[in-house]
């Protein structure tokens, strides 16, 4: 999902760069505040870990292979802000050392994979952990959260491509979303398995202990949530409007009203090509159905991987 340079235009690059800078800046401040000095090298090592882990190819049927992206996994292990910093680090090194992902596109890539993926993944993980307790619950939670985060990041990426005019939304959204609904299954599965392995061997290394009901995270999550919503509103909402509602009512719902209208691009003629129109709606329905299916699968996986504890 690393967008190369030239695939997003100037305005998209600029807007994503600003949003990402704010998000990463906030994450750094948060990490500085809550991480004990002893754990500072852990950030760099986790980034190296993530990169090395991405090298491990999990064989999938048919000779293809899946691999871990890991934002949600790191968020579950170290907390959302640490995950943002870690994944941003990975993206920067990938960009400058291995030319994976563009320089100007860094803002977009960081937004999709470091911020959106880690934070939304974490939020969903926490929510599910709240309902389903115990290790089993955590396994289910992380599998489902990783899947959702992957799909959402892909949708955001599609939105950025569409906003740049590189690929129209009606093609980008169905393509990216459906492909990543499948890729996300692998991500969810691997994240859960790895999390379980760490949980069993060295649970003390998991610095993010979610089940102690820490309300402090709320302020942090609200701020990230706002940032994510802003991003989504800019990149996705204008296109989600190819639904009967229309651009104006969506803009009003989000409260931007007319002052945002000049910034939002006028839909290009191909958005109204009748044949392609259904693909978007169909994808949305598939996504909703998919998330229910994946959640059920995650539940089953939790049961299968974690034997029922003898003492409750």
């Amino acid at each position: 999902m690393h967008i190369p340079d030239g695939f997003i235009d100037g305005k998209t690059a600029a807007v994503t760069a600003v949003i990402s800078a704010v998000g990463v800046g906030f994450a750094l401040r948060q990490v500085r505040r809550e991480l004990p000095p002893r754990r500072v090298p852990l950030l760099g090592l986790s980034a190296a870990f993530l990169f090395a882990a991405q090298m491990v190819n999990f064989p999938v049927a048919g000779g293809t292979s899946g691999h871990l992206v890991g934002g949600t996994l790191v968020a579950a292990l170290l907390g959302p802000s640490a995950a943002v910093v870690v994944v941003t680090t990975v993206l920067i090194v990938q960009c400058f050392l291995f030319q994976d992902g563009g320089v100007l596109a860094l803002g977009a890539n960081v937004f999709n994979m470091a911020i959106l993926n880690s934070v939304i993944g974490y939020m969903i993980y926490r929510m599910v952990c709240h309902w389903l307790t115990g290790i089993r619950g955590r396994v289910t939670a992380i599998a489902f959260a990783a899947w959702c985060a992957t799909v959402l990041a892909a949708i955001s990426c599609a939105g950025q491509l569409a906003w740049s005019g590189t690929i129209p939304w009606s093609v980008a959204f169905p393509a990216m979303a459906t492909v990543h609904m499948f890729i996300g299954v692998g991500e969810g599965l691997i994240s859960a398995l790895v999390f379980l392995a760490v949980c069993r061997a060295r649970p003390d290394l998991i610095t993010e202990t979610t089940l102690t009901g820490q309300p402090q995270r709320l302020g942090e999550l609200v701020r990230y949530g706002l940032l994510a919503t802003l991003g989504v509103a800019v990149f996705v909402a204008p296109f989600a409007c190819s639904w009967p509602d229309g651009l104006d009512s969506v803009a009003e719902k989000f409260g931007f009203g007319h002052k945002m209208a000049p910034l939002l691009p006028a839909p290009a003629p191909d958005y109204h090509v009748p044949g392609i129109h259904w693909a978007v709606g169909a994808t949305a329905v598939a996504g909703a159905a998919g998330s229910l299916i994946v959640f059920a699968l995650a539940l089953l996986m939790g049961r299968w991987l974690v034997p029922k504890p003898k003492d409750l």
Partner: protein
Amino acid sequence: MPCRRPALQFQTEGPVSVHLVNHHHGQPDSLVYRLSAALKLGLALVIIVVTVLAPVQWRAWFIGVAVLLVLTAWLSQLPLFFLSRRLLVLSPFVLGVVLVNAFQPAGRAKWMAVAVKSVLCLLTVILVSNTTPFSQILRVLKSIRVPTLLITTIALMHRYLFVLMDEAERMRRARASRTFTRGQRFHWQTLATVVGQLFIRASERAERIYDAMCARGWK
């Protein structure tokens, strides 16, 4: 458009790190290598920004940049095979855009613009990153006020990247040597355990690094 990250390729015998094929250590005696990192990065940024923003009609700009890059590539003494292989990474992306826009009225101009821009930008980054030691790149980032915590994290990641990749490869080989079944599920579980172990080792190493930093007076 499916996004496939290119997998790194290794020529492995012994430590993975030194034989990483996607990165070249650069020819230290080439002219380009000796230029200052700040100059190279600044110039690269200007080229990338203008290339991305430039309208399709600015042919002179694209041609000029292409000439400059080819000249730089020649001066850098980086192997041509290496350069072309790195550029080929773009092909699935470009192909995707081509396919999508092929059936549009204004499609041809659009996909050609995307193809040209992305190739030029990628070549710029390839040239800079393979002729500049990473620590110098970090120093430039530090001078533009990137926060210290992020710089430290990036530096540590870069330092231990290869160490962890070696560990991952060694663990994987050790596991593979003791894998006699062909079951898919078992395979996944094994790989997941390897990755889990990798995190544990990384965490333990992080603590030892902290101790080593304190031992030399870090506060």
